[in-house]
């Protein structure tokens, strides 16, 4: 589904990604862990081209996406993204946040989008908030709406960039529950997170990223239970 070959990313003189090769298949839930500044968020943001790629290739459904010929907007419609800071649109109601993109991009009529929006809000347990504005919601509720907003476009892949890092501790659970549900439904997901417990429970595969390369990749019980790489061991000894 997603193939990444020799991905490099530079910010000025700073090498953030130093050659990442990775293959993510349909239905996989890939959790990316690693120390701050390791490049894990940049890796995720390269996948939907929020960062332009310095070198290397990214294929989505066998289509090379980091090429000037490709319509980036169409590629992004296949990939939902959830941000650390939620980034809900504060000037729109919750329902309008969800329906804006599908209606504007002519994926659905307004009525269909509202119906879908209601379904999605029910799924994240926020039906009664449809007509509220983002400012009236708690952090956890905002993030659940952000997930619903991304799902409204019927994406094939969902990208999560530290979705619980900006939340108060008591709200982390409700967001992770929604993500677990989503994983169980078979959605292909790439998740950057510091929630090791969640990674262990939900991931089909864990990537440990450090210094801009994938140091270790494997099933969660392998990576957490019996890490092979020295840096992985060091990192896990600090966070677990």
């Amino acid at each position, binding site marked *: 589904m997603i193939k990444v070959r020799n991905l490099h990313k530079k910010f000025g003189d700073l090498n953030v990604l130093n050659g990442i090769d990775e293959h993510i298949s349909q239905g996989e839930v890939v959790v990316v862990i690693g120390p701050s500044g390791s490049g894990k968020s940049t890796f995720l943001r390269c996948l*939907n081209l*929020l960062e332009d790629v310095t070198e290397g290739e990214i294929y989505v459904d066998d289509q090379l996406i980091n090429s000037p010929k490709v319509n980036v*907007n*169409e590629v*992004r*419609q296949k*990939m*939902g*993204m959830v*941000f650390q*800071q939620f*980034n*809900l*649109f*504060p*000037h*729109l*109601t919750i329902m309008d946040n969800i329906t*804006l*993109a599908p209606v*504007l*991009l002519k994926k659905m009529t307004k009525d269909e989008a509202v119906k879908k929006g209601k379904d999605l809000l029910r799924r994240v347990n926020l039906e009664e908030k449809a007509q509220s*504005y983002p*400012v*009236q919601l708690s952090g956890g509720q905002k993030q659940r709406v952000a997930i619903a*907003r*991304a799902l409204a*476009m019927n994406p094939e892949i969902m990208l999560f960039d530290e979705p619980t890092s900006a939340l108060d501790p008591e709200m982390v659970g409700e967001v992770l529950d929604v993500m677990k549900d989503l994983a169980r439904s078979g959605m292909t997901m790439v998740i950057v997170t510091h929630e090791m417990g969640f990674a262990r429970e939900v991931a089909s595969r864990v990537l440990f990223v450090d210094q801009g390369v994938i140091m270790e990749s494997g099933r969660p019980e392998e990576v957490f239970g019996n890490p092979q790489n020295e840096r992985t061991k060091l990192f896990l000894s600090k966070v677990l």
Partner: protein
Amino acid sequence: MITFQEWFSDFSNLFYKCFIKEDRYKLLISGIGVTIKVSLLAVFIGILIGLLIAMCNLSNKKLLKWMGGIYTGVIRGTPAVTQLMIIYFVVFATVDLDKWIIAAIAFGINSGAYVSEIIRAGILSVDHGQTEAGRSLGLNAFQTMTRIVIPQAVKNIFPALCNEFIVLIKETAIVGYVGLMDIQKAGDFIKSATFVAFMPLIGTAVIYYVLIKILTLLLCRIEKGLRKSDVR
């Protein structure tokens, strides 16, 4: 020591001489019309130009940036009267357009430079995460700008934009230089005709004040509407 009665009768005599006699109030009323006409059209042109220049200044194309910079630089670096006269006597010298329209174009061009800076600051004040969220959903740059960034920027720039409009209305008091009879010019005309300075000039000031007071109240109401989504 003069009594109140004496003062009042002097005052009403002056008032009569300046405003009622020979229907002089009509001059002022038509002057109000001219000021409003010129200001409204100028505001409209100013916003259009301002938006355009702001986009130039924010774009990553070097040429557009450069052009935007020159525009703002030249307009801010020269007096409005000079610009008005150049536009009226040079640029539109041979064009057959109503005087007030030419004046409005001149003021619009002038205001556009200031408005562009206000708009630019407003757009930059919207968190970059908003743009990323829009783009990540598959919206193109234009859709993201018009549906997500600008609606939020409007709220941030509205007070500064109102201020600019108020400045603009007062700025139009120089249209007398190109022979338009606005409020200021009407007051001036009455002053010359009656040899009284106090009454027509104070009258002019009062008219501008009331006009701007009304506008301010109107704009405050609009702003309240804009802040609807901020209410918890």
